[in-house]
């Protein structure tokens, strides 16, 4: 830090960008943790099928497995674009 740094514009706060990106990716990875190994593949193939008909983002398809008292529930969420 010298006298010149006070005159220069402040550098971008990259730490907050890092935190935001991490929060999103970590939440996504946690949601599939402990699930069956085929889950990522299933998600990828579902995404391809949906994309045949509707243009959607990479994270538009969300697959999740929940365990409830003896049975497993495969939850599938597809977010379609507005309009």
């Amino acid at each position, binding site marked *: *830090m*010298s*006298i010149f740094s006070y005159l220069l514009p402040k*550098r*971008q*706060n*990259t*730490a*907050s960008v*890092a*935190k935001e*990106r*991490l*929060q999103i*990716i*970590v939440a996504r*990875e*946690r949601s599939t*943790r*402990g699930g069956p190994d085929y889950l990522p593949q299933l998600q990828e193939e579902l995404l391809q099928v949906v994309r045949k008909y509707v243009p959607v983002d990479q994270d538009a398809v969300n697959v999740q497995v929940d365990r409830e008292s003896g049975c497993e529930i495969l939850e599938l969420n597809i977010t379609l674009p507005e309009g």
Partner: protein
Amino acid sequence: MTKIVVVTSGKGGVGKTTTSAALATGLALRGFKTTVIDFDVGLRNLDLIMGCERRVVYDLVNVISGDANIKQALIKDKKVDNLFILPASQTRDKDALTIEGVEGVLNALRDDMQMDYIICDSPAGIEKGALMAAYFADEAVVVTNPEVSSVRDSDRIIGILASKTRHAEQGDGDIPSRLLLTRYSPERVENGQMLSVEDVQEILAIELLGVIPESQAVLNASNSGSPVILDTDSDAGQAYSDAVARFLGDQLPHRFLTTNKKGLFGRLFGG
């Protein structure tokens, strides 16, 4: 009661071996009989950090395969009493590590050698070596740098610790896992260029064991083969010392989290 502790991280180069060496040395300094085991089969390095690389005769795989017994393979530290090193082998055969083999070594350290603590220095990654290092652990230290890939990998490892340890498989629940944040630079955090300790804690959501500042002392220590915790004048050495005290249950405030405020002269001309 022997406690088995795994030092892990997922990502490589974040300070697992430095931390294993410091933690083991710190525990031994406090009178606990401690062995530190290098699980990085094929890429042995703990011996260098501990400064005993020229005294390695037998290694972990030799003990597992029965070529040597635990007494022959353990290297007694020359600087610190109660401290022993079990090096990794340089063989490339990762299958040399088996659950039964590792269990046998740990049992021998507990029953025959009467260890208080066994520190397992995990290799990077989530392959067999890392899983073996973690499997029998009673406690975990997750080493993380304030940097995106390290934090993400640590989260992955925390997930694995929650399901792939013996305690987890037996239904004893999660083993206690604590975060050790290394290479921390308060100046860069204050400038908004580095994730803060609060940021990392918020994302990983595990208890904080310590924060080790980025320090020249760490390289000096590995250069000379003397664990940095023995450099009691250094910031990193003191931070590791604090972390060992917290590991044993002491409540200590975290140090080295803020920059030293410079005077006017320093602010005008300082680097």
